[in-house]
C-alpha cells in the first residue's frame, strides 16, 4: 500500500522539480585540491582547509515533500574540499548562534548532511531528493547530539532532568542480557541511540522514506565544533574504497546539502536544503 503512495509522491516531486529547480547549481565548481599526507581529513580545526576556496551555497526551505519546513533559519552554507590521494575531506560551515544537542521530547539537535550518488554518472543523476530506485545516494550526516556524546559522554536521565528521581532500573537488578531487553532501540544497535562511536552516520537512500544506515560498512568519519556562532563540521571518506561511494583522485561527482537547526525544530524532512547539485571535482 505504501508503494503506490510512494510512487505518487515521486511523480509529484519529479513534476515539481522539473518546474522549479535547475539540476546543477549556478555556482562555481567545488575543487578538492591535492594536499600531502596519508591521513583522514576530518579535523575541522586543521590548517589544510585554507588551501581550499570555499563555495557558498544558498539553503532553502524544504517544501516539496511532507512534512515540510516552510521557515528555515540557515540560509547559506559554505563548503570546502581537500584530498590527499587517500581521503577526501569536506568542511561545512554555517551560522547558528545556538548549540542544540540535547534530545528530549521537544528538543531537537543541529545536524548537517552531504549527499552524493553512490555511482556518479554525469548524464544520469539520481533525484536530488533522497535518490531514486536503482540510483542510490549516499548520505553522510553529522549530528550535534552525537558529537556531544563523543566529546562529553552520553547524557544520563539525571543530567537531562536534574530533579528527576527513579526507583530502580532493570540494569541495576537483572543480568546484562536480560536487562538489554528493556533498552529498545539502543539494544538493537540503532545508531541514533548512541553517538559515542561516531558523530557522523553513513546511510543510503533510494527515495523518500528509504534512508538506511549502512551499519558495519560505515567508512565516513568526522567532527563538528561550534565557535563564534558558527558550526564548523568536517567529514572525511576514503578514496578508491572497495564499496560505498566510488571516489578517486581525478574523478568528479555531485553533492547535495541539507542542514537542520534543532532550535527551529528541524528534523527529517523539516530542513533547509540546497535544491541543486554542486559539482565536486577531485584534482589528480
Amino acid at each position, binding site marked *: 500500500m*505504501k508503494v503506490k503512495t510512494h510512487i505518487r509522491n515521486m511523480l509529484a516531486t519529479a513534476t515539481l522539480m522539473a518546474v522549479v529547480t535547475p539540476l546543477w547549481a549556478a555556482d562555481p565548481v567545488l575543487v578538492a585540491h591535492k594536499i600531502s599526507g596519508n591521513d583522514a581529513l576530518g579535523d575541522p580545526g586543521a590548517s589544510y582547509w585554507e588551501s581550499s576556496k570555499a563555495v557558498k551555497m544558498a539553503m532553502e526551505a524544504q517544501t516539496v515533500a511532507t512534512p515540510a519546513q516552510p521557515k528555515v533559519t540557515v540560509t547559506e552554507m559554505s563548503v570546502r574540499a581537500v584530498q590527499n590521494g587517500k581521503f577526501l575531506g569536506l568542511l561545512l560551515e554555517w551560522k547558528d548562534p545556538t548549540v542544540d544537542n540535547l534530545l528530549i521530547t521537544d528538543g531537537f539537535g543541529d545536524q548537517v548532511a552531504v549527499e552524493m550518488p553512490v555511482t556518479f554518472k554525469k548524464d544520469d543523476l539520481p533525484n536530488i531528493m533522497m535518490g531514486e530506485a536503482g540510483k542510490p545516494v549516499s548520505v553522510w550526516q553529522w549530528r550535534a547530539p552525537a558529537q556531544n556524546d563523543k566529546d562529553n559522554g552520553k547524557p544520563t536521565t539525571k543530567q537531562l532532568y536534574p530533579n528527576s528521581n527513579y526507583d530502580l532500573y532493570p540494569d541495576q537488578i537483572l543480568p546484562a542480557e536480560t536487562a538489554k531487553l528493556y533498552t529498545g532501540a539502543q539494544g538493537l544497535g*540503532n545508531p541514533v541511540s548512541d553517538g559515542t562511536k561516531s558523530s557522523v552516520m553513513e546511510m543510503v537512500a533510494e527515495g523518500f522514506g528509504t534512508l538506511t544506515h549502512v551499519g558495519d560498512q560505515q567508512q565516513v568519519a568526522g567532527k563538528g565544533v561550534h565557535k563564534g556562532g558558527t558550526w564548523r563540521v568536517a567529514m572525511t571518506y576514503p578514496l578508491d574504497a572497495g564499496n560505498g561511494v566510488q571516489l578517486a583522485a581525478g574523478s568528479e561527482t555531485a553533492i547535495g546539502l541539507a542542514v537542520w537547526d534543532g532550535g527551529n*525544530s528541524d528534523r527529517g524532512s523539516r530542513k533547509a536544503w540546497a535544491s541543486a547539485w554542486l559539482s565536486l571535482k577531485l584534482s589528480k
Partner: protein
Amino acid sequence: MAKVYNWHLGREMEYPHEGVRPAKQFGMVLDTNKCIACQTCTVACKTTWTPGRGQESMFWNNVESKPYGYYPLGWDVKILEKLGVQEAGGKIYQGKTLFDAAPDGERILGYLPEDADYAHPNIGEDDSVGLMSQGIHLTMPHMQWMYYLPRICNHCTYPACVAACSRNSVYKRPEDGIVLIDQSRCRGYRECVKGCPYKKPFFNSNTRTSEKCVGCYPAIEGGRQTQCTMTCIGKIRMQGYISAPDKAREDNPLDYIVHVAKIGRPLYPQFGLEPNTYYIPPTHVPPAYLYQMFGTGVEEAIAGYRKAKDDPKLLGALLLFGACKEIIHNFKVDGSHAMGFNEKGEELVRVPLVEPIHVRAAYDEKFQAYRTNIT
C-alpha cells in the same frame, strides 16, 4: 491521498496510504462505569514494558480523571481546539477529520507536546467539574461529575502515526492490526508523537527513538489478552478482535457489544483514525460532554447498557470481562451461564449470569458465633 472508508464517520475519508484492513483487528472494550482508577493496569504495563532508562515518565497505559485529568497535559483539549468546532451531522460525520484539516506541507493536523506536559501523569486526579457547597446532599443526576478514562494505544485502522512518519518506520501488522514502531528504523523525528491525537507514541530520551504501546503482541500471539486487561481487578476490560460492521459476528463478544448491542463507543471518532478501543460511556455524565468524546450514539449506548440485564447475550458478554486470561473468540449463553471459547472452539471459561445466593443461619453452631452480614 487515498480514499478509505471509516465506519465511525459513516463515510469515506482521505488518508495518506491505501486502506487495507488487517486479517484480524486488535480491539478492546472498556467499561468506564466500572473503573476506579486504581492504576493496576498502568503498573502492570509499566513493569512489563517501560521500566527502562529514558522511559521514566512514559505510560503506554494510563488512567486519567475526566474532564480535568490529562496525560500528557491537555492532550485532547489542545487538539480539539486546533481542529475547531465541527459539524457532527447525524449518522454521517459532516466535519473535518485531522487528515482533512492538515495544514499546507503537513500530512495531518497535530502538535508536539512540550516536554513538561509529561511531568504530571496523574494531574487532575479525582477533580470533579465544580465545587459542592457546604451542607449539600447528593441528588440524581449528580450535581457535579467526573469519571475515569483508562487509555492505551487504539491500534487505529487509519493510524496517524503511520501516516505521519516520513521514514516508514511505523507499521500496522496485517495479521492482527497491532501498530508498531520499528526500533531499528526509527530516527526519533517525533512525527508520530506530533501526529497522534491520542498522544500514545512517546519520545525516549535514552534511545532517542519514539516508542509506543505494543498491544502486548507476544501475549496476543500466544492467544492471551494484554497485561492491562488481565491484571484489571475491576474486570472492566475485554481484549480480543473487533470486526468491521459488515463482517460482525454475533458470537464474538466484542462485535456483540459494539455492533449488535451498540453500547461501546470509540474515543474521539471525529479525528478520523477509526480507533479500535471502545468505551462503554459513563452513565452519569452529561450527554453534551459525551457527544464530544464518544460521538453520536452515546445516549443510545447508555440506554442499552442500563437494560443489559434484559439482554442475556449482552449480559453474558459483559460478564466475560476479566473472566479468563485467554482471548475469547466466540461466546455463547445457555440460559444460566455465559461461556467463552478460544479460536479452536475449546471452552475457556464459564460464568453464571446470576451469582448463586447462599443464605446462612445468623448463628454458627459449630463456632458458637453470630455471623456478620458481609454482602
